[in-house]
């Protein structure tokens, strides 16, 4: 149980922080850690690992995400942000399609169920080894440390004071992938939190220093994930509720209240 809660907290930090980094990197509020197909890549890797049995689901997920990120890394070196986003959408569709083919050709129902339960991301951490845990914690430390290290530069880039060169954007993307994969490879992709929570943070606090949004997004991410985790485990009324979907439903009233409650704050 301690481990499950640890990963609820870790995911609550990693995904929103990755999301706000993407938004700052692209100067676009639709930036999301899954925008470049990383979520699809994680699923493809997990599916391939599950169906083939070549490696653990966690390792498969990480390797595939790394490969896709490296492709995006090289694309980032050559194109501008707008083209990169377009590429990401197309690339994500492509990777997702590959994943669909792998899953629909599952050798048996048990493997399909195993894969699905990983993707449903309810923090059960079944078949996760201590090696997986250590590996993901290292990824988290590197990714989060990099987020802090580059915060000043990202803020200035977002404000338009500087323009990050493509190679720096590509390196940032790689480090964001480390942060995101630290959670996703263990718990599966978790939607909403990396897009909705950073946007909520920017509505609630108009300051453009990204460190404020690291803090608010992390706090909200942890809070929302903890509540969601409780609901899916103890108030599901007999229905299997995936964390991603449930969190989006739970957060909806909050989003509505915040959007309609007051004028947006100014910095």
């Amino acid at each position, binding site marked *: 149980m301690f481990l499950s809660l640890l990963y609820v907290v870790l995911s609550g930090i990693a995904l929103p922080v990755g999301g706000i980094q993407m938004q700052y990197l692209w100067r676009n509020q639709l930036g999301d850690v899954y925008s470049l197909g990383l979520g699809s890549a994680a699923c493809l890797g997990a599916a391939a690992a599950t169906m083939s049995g070549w490696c653990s689901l966690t390792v498969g997920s990480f390797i595939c995400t790394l490969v896709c990120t490296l492709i995006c890394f090289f694309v980032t070196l050559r194109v501008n942000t707008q083209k990169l986003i377009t590429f990401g959408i197309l690339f994500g569709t492509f990777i997702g399609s590959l994943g669909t083919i792998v899953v629909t050709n599952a050798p048996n129902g048990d493997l399909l169920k195993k894969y699905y339960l990983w993707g449903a991301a309810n923090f059960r951490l079944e078949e996760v080894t201590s090696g997986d845990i250590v590996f993901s914690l290292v990824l988290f430390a590197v990714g989060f440390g990099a987020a802090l290290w580059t915060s000043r530069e990202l803020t200035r880039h977002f404000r338009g004071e500087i323009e990050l060169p493509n190679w720096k954007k590509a390196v940032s993307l790689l480090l964001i992938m480390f942060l995101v994969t630290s959670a996703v490879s263990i718990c599966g992709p978790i939607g909403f939190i990396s897009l909705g929570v950073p946007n909520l943070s920017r509505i609630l606090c108009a300051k453009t220093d990204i460190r404020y949004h690291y803090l608010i997004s992390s706090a909200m991410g942890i809070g929302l994930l903890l509540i969601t985790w*409780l609901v899916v485990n103890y108030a599901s009324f007999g229905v299997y509720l995936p964390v991603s979907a449930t969190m989006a439903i739970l957060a909806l009233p909050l989003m509505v209240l915040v959007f309609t409650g*007051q004028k947006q704050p100014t910095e």
Partner: protein
Amino acid sequence: MFFPSILTAASLLFAAAMPDTLATATVTAERGTVVSRVDTLAVAPTASPESLPEILSRIPGIQINDYGGIAGLKNISLRGMGATHTAVLVDGVRVGNVQSGQVDLGMLDLTSAGAVTVDYVNSKINIRTARPAFADGRNFGGFVRLGGGTYDTWVPSGRLDFRLGDGLALSVNGAGVLSQGNYRDNNDIIEYRGGIDLFGREWNIKAYANSSVRGCPGSISWPAPLDRQTDGNYFLQGSWSHRFSPLYDLSISAKGASDHLHYYGDSAGYVYENDYLQREALFNMEHGFTLSETLRLVLEDNLQFDHLKTDAYNTPTASRTALDSKALLSWTPGRFRADLAALWQGIWDKGGVNRHVLSPSVGLSYALPAGFTLVGTLRRAYRVPMFNDLYYAGMGNTDLLPEDAWMSGLELAWTRRTDAWQFDAGVDGFYNDLKNKIISAPTADPWIWSMFNLGAATVKGVDSRASVRRTAGSATWGLAAAWTWQAGTAIPYQPRHSGSLTADLSATGWRAAATLLHRGVREDSYGTQMDAYRLLDFSLSKEISRFTLMLDLKNILDSQYEVVAGYPMPGFHFLAGLRVNF
């Protein structure tokens, strides 16, 4: 944060407006967010280290269980719910004890307390460390104090405050209690405490250590002339809060604690020793959304991990992970106020039973004309068994169910303020319905005891209070009276009638205060009736420049009494002291 937490937060906000310096320790009794009242219990520090528990005991509905004076365990309970239902917090962060669930007030440094908030609705006592206050142009302040008195008691203490920058201050404090406690055998104590507090504008960090060695004389009927107990308590905690915009504020706190208890027992030649090592980590987070002028939403998560290693249990180690998630909606249209909350608690014991429960609560208040306020509250309180209950060798019962209670209250309060006068009064009825109360009782073999769920228990009562304070120039005086009637089933040590009368006067550097406390007839845990008792205390102090002379006379009537059966309290005793400010 939920209703409970929200209420606590509101309590803290209220307390923030109160004087929060060492010059006056203010004790505030509250009904939650909706009601904030002061029981005219602002008192100057005295020579006695027991002063704050004694002050708390004058508040209606509060019971301090004292196992024998200066060296004895002191825990606190509200309205008959028991110490395990009462949370003690330091600067808003909970003091944990997964072993017994009871916090010993003796291990906390109360000499540096600036404010104590009592939250009846949520059964919480929050002790706030006094923030340093610097005279104009000064970057340094503090005091040293030495008290001494009966039973070879010495009580040194001191505090140094440093201004490190704009809005940044450091406080270093220490205290000791050295006493032979020789109104009983084997009742001595040597205790040292120290702390470092770093205060920022929106944050504070506290490091704290307590170390004590004491005799454990046992009860009169089962004396333990050779038993000794050694304690070491250490924690590091920090909290931070910030309002990011008119719409949103965030508070975060975290704590790590380590508590070690060693017990040496010698029962008629049978020697035994037990060690308990507790480790605790907790993390709290509170999101506040001010959605409109009348609507506020608060979400809170508290995550806590406890681990205990001991040789006294059926299992060498035990650990618990707990998560509280709360949501509170406050609606304040004009004179009316409604607080609706839901608290979700999950508790997971390694190798044990997992629990989760939803606890709703509601608070309604209406501000009537002429300073009257009507308040009603209803809350569910859920208390899981502690490790001693579950695992203690020979006694623990892993089949125990959690205690489950509904607590309700209805209060009519009145307040009036003028430039010179301050009047407060209130009548508060309460009814607590408790199921599955955990008690120790004999098994089929009368020589073997175990923990059981008792069944149902109820506590009902009325708290009433009235106080007046008059300030004229530099002189101030106050009178306060409190009375509690309480009845119930199977709740030991709760007197049917209890009350207190307090008077204080301050002028030209002199300060005098007297308290008369009455505790009526009550029953011990075996149902045996215990006699009523009355205590009269008097304290006097005189401030001369930077020096303050203090004299505390305790139990002037020399009452021979017991708060807990078998643990006699001291008769008349005194403590005199000198404090030097610099």
